[in-house]
């Protein structure tokens, strides 16, 4: 096997473009034919045409351990759809890290959160009860 001779950058660029076009066509066909499911695709297409969401977390309920759950509008892109752009704030301070596993939130708390489907799984910074600690919990979508 000779792996010493490398094609030039123009050739590589051409190969990358060709393969990208081919894979795009195949991918679209697989989606249209229903061979691959991508439930979030409609949300991603609609995202640039709707206002950025911001709102209070209401009807908070306890999940388990340090984890609390609140319901969000279902049209928001969540980690279930690929990548949530949501930030959660405790008063004026950002909570985090985001995109955490739910078990990690339940055990670790400390502000970890996850936006999954139409719900946000979150913990407070000091693992207190967000319904009684007197702080305000709100979310906003990053553009």
């Amino acid at each position, binding site marked *: 096997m000779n792996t010493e001779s490398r094609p030039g950058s123009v050739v590589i660029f051409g190969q*990358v473009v060709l*393969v990208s076009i081919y894979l795009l066509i195949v*991918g679209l066909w697989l989606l249209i034919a229903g061979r691959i499911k991508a439930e979030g695709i409609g949300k*991603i297409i609609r995202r640039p045409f709707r206002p950025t969401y911001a709102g209070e977390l209401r009807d908070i309920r306890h999940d388990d351990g340090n984890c609390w759950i609140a319901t969000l509008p279902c049209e928001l*892109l969540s980690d279930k759809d690929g*990548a949530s752009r949501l930030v959660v704030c405790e008063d004026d301070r950002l909570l985090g890290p985001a995109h955490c596993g739910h078990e990690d939130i339940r055990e670790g708390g400390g502000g970890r959160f996850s936006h999954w489907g139409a719900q946000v799984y979150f913990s407070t910074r000091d693992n207190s009860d967000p319904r009684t600690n007197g702080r305000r919990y709100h979310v906003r979508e990053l553009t």
Partner: protein
Amino acid sequence: MDKPILDRVMPILCDPITGASLRKEEGQFISESGRFPIIRAVPRFVAGDDYVSSFSFEWNTHYRTQLDCFRSDRSSEEQFIKKTGFGPGDLRGKLVLDAGVGAGRYTDVVSRWGADVIGVDLSYAVEAAYKNFVDRPNVWIAQADIGALPFKPQSFDAIFSIGVLHHTPDTEAYFKKLVPLLKPGGSIAIWVYPKEGDYLIRNEWIRFVNKIPSHMFYAWCRWFVPWAQARLDRPLVGLVRRVFPFSTQGLGVENDILDTFDGYSPKYHGIHSPEEVEGWFHDMGLQQIRRPSDWKTCVRGIRSASHH
């Protein structure tokens, strides 16, 4: 100069078609029925790399990427223990077959544990493996087909085949070719792709992607994987990842380029349920069948000591 392991290899070598014993003579292995050349120090029991040319390409390009001895970590060792349940004490001094050696990531582990390891591969990955183990006296590499291996029955104390058999034309049939090579009481451990998650999605893609020439798809992976990994928080990349799962194993971008190429380029891509795999072990009369970890399609079994 021959390696010491050859003393253990010669008695078990045979013509893969007729089963006749082989002798080494003038740069080749000879039986009454055939001749098998040694080319660039590697014995060849096949004429070419048949349906696995993508593996010839990837392992000669990434011949060091996944080997612990070059990475200076234990990522492959940890994965080997998880996927096989074998530990260092289980294989020390044993004669072990690595069926589908690739560049030798697991042969590296097992030979450092003190086993004598024979690594076979249908692809020209054997060139990479030979280069990686040229100084290791307890490793012997050969180019051969798992469907027609040049070894006599009941030759090995242990056999493992991790992430290989699903790339053959018939996963079950090729697994069943390995079992007779075990000594009574010997262990076999395999991992094949599960019929779930990203493997199901890749199964839809593969017949289209494996038509792309290896060097072109590889060039694309070299561009795409780092590009996408730098944008994992973007919704569009998140969607792409669900439609076209690419590797983010946390073992470095070179590993992820290799793994993405590896996942989409082979000709054959079998996917199997754990029950199906365990059924093959039962069919072959193996005993103490178990799954060594939460990798559901990792299965291990022992050949009965009274097996004939």
